[in-house]
């Protein structure tokens, strides 16, 4: 029977298909499994290759039952796109921590001029979550390293700062284990730049 103090930590990842949210969540999975936790991850994708919204529920703790996080029970929100962070604002606990990538990917209705892309997303989050809100420009940082596609790992680097108990090497090992060797150098740089960014 689960005791009250066997706390499960809930991380919610959101983004747009093609941004690498699933790879990012795989890194989290490796890191927390190796740190000795029970982990569960659940994702929704499918329906065409690109462009739809992608969400991942990631949970770790001594014992994790449900693969889904309860609505309003998110401890950490890691979002790869501004609108996709706002869409899940109600999922975050009052004292939840938030890391948002400053990127706008327009959905079809916005492209067609039928809907407005929300403005001031950062401010809305800050109003409710104060100093717990962090926004970085993953694309810009990754771009300087020569490949905007590494933005997801920049984000993971920054996100890793929320977990001081986990050693840097654990994250780097997970990245190495999940990627082809020719991508190691770039992604380790991206991870380190991300860590500096927060």
């Amino acid at each position, binding site marked *: 029977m689960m005791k009250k103090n066997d706390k499960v930590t809930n991380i919610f990842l959101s983004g747009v298909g093609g941004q690498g949210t699933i790879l990012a969540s795989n890194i989290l999975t490796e890191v927390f499994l190796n740190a000795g936790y029970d982990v569960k991850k659940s994702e*929704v994708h499918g329906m065409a*290759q690109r462009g739809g919204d992608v969400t991942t529920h990631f949970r770790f703790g001594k014992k994790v039952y*449900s693969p889904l996080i*309860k609505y*309003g029970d998110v401890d950490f929100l890691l979002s790869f796109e501004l609108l996709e962070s706002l869409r899940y604002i*109600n999922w975050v606990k009052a004292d939840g921590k938030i890391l948002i990538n400053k990127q706008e990917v327009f959905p079809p209705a*916005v*492209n067609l*001029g039928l809907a407005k892309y929300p403005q001031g997303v950062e401010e809305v989050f800050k109003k409710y979550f104060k100093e717990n809100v962090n926004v970085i420009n993953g694309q810009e940082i990754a771009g300087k390293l020569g490949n905007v596609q590494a933005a997801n790992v920049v984000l993971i680097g920054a996100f890793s700062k929320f977990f001081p108990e986990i050693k840097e090497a654990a994250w780097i090992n997970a990245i190495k284990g999940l990627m082809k060797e020719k991508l190691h150098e770039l992604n380790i740089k991206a991870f380190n730049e991300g860590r500096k960014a927060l």
Partner: protein
Amino acid sequence: MKKEIKVLQGNSAIARGAWEAGVKFASAYPGTPSSEILQEIADNYPDIYAEWSPNEKVAVEVASGASIAGARVMASMKHVGLNVASDPFMTLAYTGIKGGMVIVVADDPNVHSSQNEQDSRNWARFAKVPMLEPGDAQECKDFTKIAFDISEEFDTPVLLRGETRVSHSDSPVVLEDRKESKIPIGLDPKNATKYVMVPAYVRVRRKFIEERMRKLEAYADGFKFNKMEINDPSIGIIASGVSYLYAKEVFPEYSFLKLGMIWPLPKKMIAEFYKKVKRVIIVEELDPFFETEIKAMGYKVFHGKDLIPNMYELSPEIIEQALKGKKYKAPKIKIKPEDLPRRPPNLCAGCSHRALFYALKKLGTFVFGDIGCYTLTAAPPLQALHTCICMGAGIGGAHGAMKVFGKEGLGKMCAVLGDSTFLHSGVAPLMDVVYNKGNSTTIILDNRITGMTGHQEHAGTGFTVRQESTNMVDYEVLVKALGVKSIKKVDPYKLEETTKIIKEELAKDEPSVIITVNSPCIMLKRANRKFKNPFFVINEDNCRGCKMCLEIGCPAISWREGAGATKDGHKRKGTVFIDKGVCVGCDICTQICKYEAIVPGKR
């Protein structure tokens, strides 16, 4: 082998379980959320022969042959795939098997990517075969292995129920070694009474399957994955799979009867559970399957589908709200997610389907559609696809409608389907069109791959699941053999020519087929698709803001508001903008723009 723990996706764990169980043969047709199972086998377990079959019926049939030869076999599919495979499946329940046979069927509660939401547990009851349901990756592996033992012990195919939140969830799994099955490889020609289902032999097997069900019921009572957890006895919850995990999350203090085998039900165990707990709540996703059965056994159900929804997927908070009766209060934030623009999936920038459906829209064609990426063209702004029922239904639909309209229907409608779908179940209805003197037009969108489910090979791509070169179906020759005389090829990127050919074919009073060429999936790496220009940009001197180019719904093109004028003085309310990071230079929008406002960009 030292104890190794690895985080696996539910589907990967099923593949691992098959390997550890000594499986020799695996077949499948891709379908979300089941697709990864066979790909995982092909990529990681060379001991297992693996194939993409053209459809689920064939996947089950080839697996049955391998089983009769003595091998342990697995066929995997999504829920609607078992409908296709139901013909061999229902009779295999009679013949039974030789080498263990497990059919994985993955449900899609909440219809993340399917044409209906059905509860596959009903197939187990209907066919009179056992069904197991895992809840996490460890159970996916364990249940797969034990399913093979059950299959061989009781001479039956066994259903393993996956579903989105199990198939696409990852959790730790303890890896073990492979163990070969003890069943000898070999055919037994003297076993016709078991495998030849003519009426006289069927009647014998009919009795056998009833006896088998009784034995399985007894087995279910001692089945090690049916577990009772007695804590607070005031409430006992009966649940299985991921529903158990949700309920356990919300009510860790209550008692549970957790079912690993969900058909047949463990009757003695249920009776015992009713003695141990005061009131029983049944938590199950989709149909009131357990509830109906348990009520039929004469028990009272304190709560079940009276409170828990019988549609869409469950979640911990749905169960909490339903059973605790209080609405979950979200933090006080004044943002309504429903007010934000939705982000539905869209055809990729440069996709050849976009051009073809634009041509159909311009012609005002009613399109009998099918299952694939192109189904997305039903959405705005294209809105160019008008039906989607099941794989292959589009061709039959167009034929039927043409018979109703007669010659008046000429030029007004057609069927459209992809290459994989055509091979899955488009050949037979096309044969029907010719045979029954129809006059409908079928357009085969040949993008050289199964696109929607994430790039699986098929008989038309020239590669097997393990990337070995193989024969490539020649659609033109095949269609000709079916008796179609009018066969045309179109390059969908040439809009004017494509539109002209479609118009001509639709007007012909005979069966006709149009096959797209030069149209590989834009995401298919080996096609190495390169267009003449890397991307396009807007010449703002010319853009009149007419929004014509927005009609194709390309993700690279967006609208920017702002009053202004063209260089030669035409007023406009805004201009369009092309995102060069998204544009691939397919050239479709330039063929639509009347003002030469879309021009090649330079790197």
